[in-house]
């Protein structure tokens, strides 16, 4: 498949601060690519480099086969961008801003614009200074989505949107994908990236640390298992690939690697299994593996299954949906 975005060994320094430190990032044509990372990890810096708003200190960047620093006008005619922090001219109306940005981008589909305004329930006749954060976000989204771009760079596009509007946005992204357009979606909202993305890249401290299709990445993480047993057998915690075993009365919870699932379930079955719930790894687990505390994860792997040292039990119940802290 053709690559729409290719970044190799990209370094970006701001004075003494290194924001991107040898970043490799690749987006294939026609995919929705989730670009995940917490605040300050370099997501916006990466997108601004792709737009030529910043100049890389080292490394190579190609977007749609062009150099974003030199071929600005030719490139930007083919892409649309929604900034992470949408700032509008206070005395222009939303409609005026949308039309201006559309004309500057090149192709501006009037009918599509009006349809989007209706979809997002945005009043275009209000002055920008009176818009809420969510409505400012809508202005930028409508302006971008009304274009005929091949590549959409969306920097945390749903921040400030309510759940209904988020849903409308997801519909738009699926529509773009069906039309064969490429979307890069930066986010720290995992459920959103999970719902939309074909592939994700995870960025941490200026480097892409993980990239691939979701299914593939899931293999890298552990499944949460909770089981009620007739009697808890000893030695569950020394089974290979089984981590964070916590026993309360007859209930066992553990984090299990894909390879360790078989032996672990055998052990549970022979101990009189009464009920079993397992939670597939979510993007959140992926995320926490890279962010929660890398050193704690490494320590757990190194010490293996011995309890005590490796016992960094995740306090949240599996599947509770909340972000679990690993440094509790």
């Amino acid at each position, binding site marked *: 498949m053709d690559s729409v975005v290719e970044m190799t060994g990209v370094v970006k320094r*701001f004075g003494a601060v290194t924001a991107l430190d040898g970043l490799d990032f690749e987006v294939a044509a026609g995919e929705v690519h989730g670009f995940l990372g917490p605040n300050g990890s370099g997501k916006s810096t990466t997108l*601004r480099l792709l*737009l*030529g*708003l*910043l*100049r890389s200190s080292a490394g190579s960047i190609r977007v749609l086969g062009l150099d974003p620093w030199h071929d*600005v*006008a030719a490139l*930007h*005619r083919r892409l*649309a*961008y929604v*900034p992470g*922090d*949408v*700032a*509008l*001219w*206070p*005395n*222009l*109306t939303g*409609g*005026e*801003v*949308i*039309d*201006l*940005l559309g*004309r*500057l*981008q*090149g192709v501006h589909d009037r009918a599509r614009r009006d349809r989007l305004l209706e979809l997002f329930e945005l*009043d*275009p*006749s*209000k*002055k920008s*200074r*009176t818009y809420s954060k969510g409505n400012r976000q809508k202005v*930028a989204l409508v302006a971008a989505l009304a274009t005929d771009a091949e590549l959409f*760079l969306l920097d945390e596009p749903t921040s400030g949107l309510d759940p209904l509007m988020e849903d409308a946005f997801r519909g738009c992204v699926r529509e773009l994908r069906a039309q064969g357009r490429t979307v890069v979606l930066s986010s720290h909202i995992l459920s959103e990236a999970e719902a939309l993305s074909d592939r994700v890249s995870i960025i941490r401290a200026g480097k892409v640390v993980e990239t691939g299709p979701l299914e593939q990445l899931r293999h890298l993480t552990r499944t949460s298992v909770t089981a009620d047993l007739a009697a808890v057998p000893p030695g569950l915690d020394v089974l290979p690939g089984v981590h964070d075993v916590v026993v309360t009365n007859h209930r066992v919870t553990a984090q299990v690697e894909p390879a360790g699932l078989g032996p672990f379930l055998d052990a549970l079955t022979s101990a009189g299994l009464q009920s079993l719930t397992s939670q597939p790894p979510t993007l959140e687990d992926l995320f926490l593996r890279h962010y929660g505390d890398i050193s704690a994860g490494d320590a757990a792997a190194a010490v293996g299954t011995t309890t005590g040292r490796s016992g960094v039990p995740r306090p949240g119940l599996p599947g509770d949906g909340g972000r679990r802290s690993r440094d509790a």
Partner: protein
Amino acid sequence: MRETLAGTGVMIRLGLRRDRWLLPFWIAGFALISYSTAVAGAELYPELGSRVEAATALNATASMVALFGRIYDPTSIGALSLIKYTAFMTAILAVLMAILVVRHTRADEESGRLELLGGGRLGRDAPLASALTISLGANLALGLLSAAALTAGGLPSSGSLAFGLGWAATGMAFSAVAGVAAQVTASARAATGFSIGFIAVTYALRAVGDLAEPGPSVLSWLSPIGWNQQIRAFAGDRWWVLALPAALCLVLVPAAFALRAARDLGAGLRAERPGPSAGSLAGVWDLAVRLQYRLLLAWSVAFVLFGVVIGSLVSNVGELLNSPNAQDLIRRIGGQAALTDAFLAAEISIMGVLAAAYGVSAANHLRSEEASGHTEALLGTATTRIRWAASHFAFALAGVTVLLLLAGVSIGAGAASAVGDAALVGRSTVAALAQVPAAWVLAGVALAVFGWAPRLAGMVWVFLLALVALGEFGVLWNAPEWLMELSPFRHSPLLPVDSGAVPALAALTVAAAALAALGFAGWRRRDLTA
């Protein structure tokens, strides 16, 4: 303490923290200038005779009286040395104080910072109260320190105190004006613009009043800057005049609080109306025009009014000159016509500096657009950097030209109707247009700073003020010649302008173009920064 004032102390501390460089710099600057002027004055005019001669000549020169005011005691060394400071420096002080108050009230409100703070225990009136308190403290420090500096420079202590308190009281009066403006307008830019416009009007009022014969007319008494001159420090020390700015504060400060109580956070007094739901802006040039035309319109109106008023002052020039000394002066410089020319030339060169100030403010739109994040959205489209930057810069150049054209025509029209000589319109228009290249140079400086050191955009104003101060006081300060030659205004030809002016104008235009090219080159290669 009243609930609406809760948190004023915290806000004062925050304000002082934010201004920890700015305020000491301003205060020390005014005190230093006062000291060096007192010392220089004593050196320049060691004897009574030379003082009286200089004071009489100044009082007899209409352009000087219009610009700076009169000397009310020709024998006073203090009044003579500080002639340029009672009105001119006071106006600069007033502008600084207006900027200070708007910066801590409307600008914070517009940016949303006050909303962030408003979630805490912060009363509605605390921002305005803290801004005015900081301003009061700064004015008093500036006034008292300057008074001490004047005394240390060898001037009588009573007059020094009157002079320093005059600065403090006038600065405070304009802080109160800015406090009101910040409530009435819905943007920081408009509030600052309104305040500066008010200062310009009061300056012009006293210029007309001071030119009236005999002595200041009632117009001078309508102007806070006029009041400052009527304190007559070192020439009678009329302390009671200080009551006038104090009274103005007592009226305006409660008015500002009342206006604040009558509106919502972030709103002006007028509610926001809906606008067009579809846009007609076709590109970055349209956008630049849309964002900037209001400011240019306001400047244009001010330029026309100001031009007509100072142009028509020409008729007073001759009437002023009844003393034998002055008559002698006229004969020496070439008769009545030369005197008219000199007067118009002085006024037109002031308009040139003002137009340059407009050019800087228009060119600095580039930086404010970038810093507020608007540029990011625009450059995400097919717009190139150069195209976008060129739109605002071109508007700045065109705006400067329009303003000086208007200034030339209106000064000429005012003068022509006053003395019945229609040829003056053409002469003054040509002379005003000859000021355009120097103003372009300043816009070029703003663009160069934008291209290479965008965070220093505000320093362009300091640079402009330094050029003005150098031009006005350079000789007094014994500034080296090469330093004074740096100022583009020094190379602008004066009325009457003929073909001999072409090389200087060409050189200035080339300098402006070079600065612009430098700025564009920097902007092409640098990161976008907030």
